[in-house]
């Protein structure tokens, strides 16, 4: 009985890592497509996003089965409940990356100076997602805390992008729709960063038993 439980927990861990890896790959793909003005990535992003949704449901059912059939306590319970919360964040990351991919074709492949601000932002976001998944995989507390601190970089980048776009609109150098699209993309990146922070916080919870919010 216990053996089966351990097996299921291992399986859960495996699936979580796989889902994390898919999120990582999706966001990297979207960032590359954005910076290269490549609208072909959108379709690929869509299938990947769909896969992530499916993985979420799969992991969710594993978690619920474990909770019902094994009635775990202490650390095991923490790991499973943290997994349930984490997949929600991962799924959101996937959705938002997909949203970015949907906007990219409307930019008409423009890769002007305004995209220069996006590069550090996209890179910082990718790094945050990778680090938060890494923190989960290696159960690394320092890395998890590092992710939380790294959020400021993305936030700063977002406000910089916002300022640039406001200036662009006031100087009337770009059409409004383009500027708004860019703003949406920036906001999505910022939200993805926040979800990465959430994941890192849940990693901390599953290891130590205390959540940052408490």
């Amino acid at each position: 009985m216990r053996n089966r439980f351990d097996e299921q927990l291992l399986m859960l861990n495996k699936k979580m890592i796989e889902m994390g890896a898919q999120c990582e790959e999706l966001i990297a793909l979207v960032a590359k497509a954005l910076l290269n003005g490549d609208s072909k990535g959108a379709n690929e992003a869509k299938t990947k996003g769909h896969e992530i949704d499916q993985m979420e449901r799969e992991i969710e059912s594993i978690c619920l089965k474990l909770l019902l059939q094994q009635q775990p306590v202490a650390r095991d319970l923490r790991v499973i409940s943290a997994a349930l919360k984490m997949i929600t964040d991962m799924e959101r990351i996937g959705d938002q990356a997909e949203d970015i991919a949907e906007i990219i074709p409307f930019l008409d492949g423009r890769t002007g100076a305004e995209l220069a601000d996006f590069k550090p932002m996209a890179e910082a976001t990718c790094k945050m997602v990778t680090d938060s998944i890494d923190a989960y995989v290696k159960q690394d507390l320092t890395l998890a805390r590092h992710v939380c601190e790294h959020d400021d970089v993305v936030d700063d980048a977002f406000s910089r992008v916002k300022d640039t776009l406001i200036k662009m609109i006031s100087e009337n150098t770009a059409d409004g729709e383009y500027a708004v699209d860019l703003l949406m993309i920036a906001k999505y990146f910022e939200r993805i960063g926040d979800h990465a922070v959430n994941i890192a916080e849940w990693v901390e919870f599953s290891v130590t038993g205390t959540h940052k919010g408490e």
Partner: protein
Amino acid sequence: MTKKIFRSIISVALIVLLSSLVIATTFLYDYFNQTQVSQLKAELSLVADTVNDVGIEYFDNFDSTVFRFTVVAADGKVLYDTEADASEMENHVDREEIKEAIEHGKGSSARNSSTLTEKTFYEAVLLDDGNVLRISVSQLTVGALILSMLPAICAIVIVAVIVALVLSHRMAKKVTEPLLNLDLEHPEDNNSYEELSPILTKIHKQHKQIKSQMETLHRKSDEFEQIISSMSEGLVLLDEHGMVLSMNTAAASIFSVKESAVGKDFLVFDRTTDMSKAVEGAFSGKHSEFKTQRNGNEYQFNINPIVSDGKTLGAVILAFDITDKAFAERNRQEFTANVTHELKTPLQSIIGSAELLENGLVKPEDTSRFVGNIRKEATRLVSLINDIIRLSQLDENHEPATETVDLMDVSKEVVEVLTVSAAKRNVTLNIEGEPQTIYGVRRYIYEIIYNLCDNAIRYNVDGGKVAISIGKENGRTAVSVSDTGIGIAPEHQSRIFERFYRVDKSHSKETGGTGLGLSIVKHAVAYHSGKVTLESELGKGTTVKVVF
């Protein structure tokens, strides 16, 4: 052990006790009975004689504690009894011994009492007066006897149990002590029971066998460890659950694993979709390979299932560093692209001129210019092809005849050949130093000096100078060609020996040249195990030194 010994001791003790009891009681009881009866008879005859003499009055002063006497009249009426009042006793005419005595003069019988605890022996004799004198004595029955002996028997049994306990304990200890003290590490050195020696010999043999097998195993695993740790390819072994069984140093550096990876899920170290799909495929028995970049290097991963008896037991991941190979591949592709480009350009020009001539679009006075153009481009093509042939010969590394070559002779020859082109550019050529000889391929050395001088003239300024100096440097023969030309910028200096690399990106035909000269020099020098060094300053000139 103790229990068993105890049981056997106690059972022996009990059996002995019981059997001796039975034998003793049977024999002794019979014996006592007989003695009793004969004693009774003797006593009876004695008393009967006296009574016959004295009469019944004899009993008036009679006192007997051992025997009981009864006098019974012939009709059965009790006349006298030593223990009871005769008048109250019942008629004894039916008693067996009395009957017998009346009939035969003597009678005897034995009867158990109503409680069965006593047995009474009777002897009777007919007196002279017609009365019957009876003597009787009571004694315990066998059962009662044993019953009375019970406390003693119990005591003996208890003593036997205690003795058996102590003895069995001691014996067990004594028997087992040598067994417990057996040194199983060195079974043959033991000095215990003889009966154990076959077992000990067997153990000794098995010891030796296990030891040798362990040694073989250790050696094998050491060998395996040695082999995989000194492998430059990364090797990872996974079990059927995807856990790492073994990971060599090369693989650890590829997957940036710092601590021991054994026993952990491989996903922890690499979670890319490509890899997890390939590993999953391996578990279902499929071989797969893919190329990917990691830490700035290019790797090729081969993932194979480990199958035994039709069951997948795990997977092997082999990682090859193909950075150099990929680089060489790119170089070759670039070279091919360059060659085709270089070959195509003059041909296009030739075709263009020829077409114009063919269609009569060229004015007669321009014809010679166009034909000259065609000849020039064709010459360029030939020289390009010659260069490529020379390069490929050097690449193939076939061994041409080596001889003693005088560098001065070769240099003079080169200067002779190049005088015309030098004069065209108004460049003076000089040879300095003294004759030096080296052992090598004359043609290759000619190529080295020719190409260096050719470049020195080609990229020189009007009225510039080119000097070939031959001499010794640190005991080794050296040739250097210096010019007062345009020089090479530092960012190009490391790349000019590459094939088709031009400082002037436009591949302009102004200066001519194929872009292969220095490449040929590099290969030719390398063939002679020499070294080329370049010193150059933009606008001042270049010195190329070759040390053999």
